[in-house]
């Protein structure tokens, strides 16, 4: 390219939009496979059937409670029956932050949850974990806003706002149970968190790529109990 003209790296802009998209998708596939040292995408995995998994978990739990009740006893033979109430499946849902947009004072985090959250699952509690790498030892104010989609339009509205005093470096937690519960019914449950941070602070998205400090949400959930109908 002659001086003052387009850099060759910008050549992609000259491609037709459809072609450009195909090139980028092919490039994305190729680069991910190369970085994972895979010659081709793995064939469809064969995860254990959901029913088999639930049965195995129930057996494990039943075995544990049985062992706790009579220590030193080894059981062999049929799996013990579950006690009343044990049939409810409880588990944890983890969601790590993604696609953050940020300015020097504000950071936006998105937490995506599986569609299962919207239907068959009841969220018992949920906690947001944020790591701060504060350059100052004294407490600094941080504002955390939980946003929800506005039913009247494409914008987001503030569901709740919390102001924290963050002391130095370390993890802070915030109860986001009501916000995660309110995602029930959404087709693609997504929690949006907006943070206002002091200007000289590092974003909670670690610049040194320390993944162990990545923001996340933990939700304790359990399968919803089916409605019971009693005939009199």
């Amino acid at each position, binding site marked *: 390219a002659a001086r*003052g003209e387009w850099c*060759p790296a910008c050549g992609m802009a000259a491609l037709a939009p459809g072609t450009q998209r195909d090139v980028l998708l092919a490039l994305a596939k190729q680069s991910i496979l190369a970085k994972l040292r895979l010659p081709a995408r793995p064939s469809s*995995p064969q995860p254990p059937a959901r029913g088999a998994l639930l049965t195995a978990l129930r057996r494990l739990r039943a075995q544990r409670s049985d062992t706790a009740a009579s220590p030193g006893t080894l059981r062999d033979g049929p799996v013990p029956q579950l006690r009343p109430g044990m049939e409810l499946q409880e588990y944890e849902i983890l969601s790590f932050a*993604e696609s953050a947009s940020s300015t020097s004072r504000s950071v936006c985090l998105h937490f*995506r949850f599986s569609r299962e959250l919207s239907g068959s699952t009841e969220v018992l509690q949920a906690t947001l974990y944020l790591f701060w790498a504060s350059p100052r030892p004294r407490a600094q104010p941080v504002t955390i806003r939980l946003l929800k989609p506005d039913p009247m339009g494409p914008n987001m509205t503030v569901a709740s706002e919390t102001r924290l005093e963050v002391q130095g470096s370390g993890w802070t937690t915030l109860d986001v149970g009501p916000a995660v519960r309110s995602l029930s019914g959404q087709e693609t449950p997504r929690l949006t968190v907006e943070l206002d941070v002091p200007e000289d602070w590092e974003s909670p998205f670690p610049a040194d790529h320390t993944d162990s400090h990545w923001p996340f949400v933990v939700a304790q959930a359990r399968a919803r109990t089916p409605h019971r109908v009693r005939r009199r």
Partner: protein
Amino acid sequence: GVDCGGDSRMCCRQEFFVDFKEIGWEDWIIQPAGYHMNYCTGLCPLHMAGIPGLAASFHTAVLNRIKAASAAAAVDSCCVPTQRRPLSLLYYDRDSNIVKTDIPDMIVDSCGCT
């Protein structure tokens, strides 16, 4: 860094999201749902040149390939990634094990002129 938008043709970061569902990869990549394959594009006039930060990476490899394909050797300043972060993947490998890995420098956060 500047995000592309509007009529400006200056160096900026163009967002591009590869949805794993769209390319049929959602069955083996558990998380995330897609890859933010942002890239840098736009003009770099001489007065904008000189922003450092270009290290060896997948993106420089792409850049070099495009440069090699170009007929001309003498080029102006280029619009390249100046800040990147890793892509964390949770996926099923060939033996159906669940693997978590981080691929460094895969997501472009900002762009600048060399």
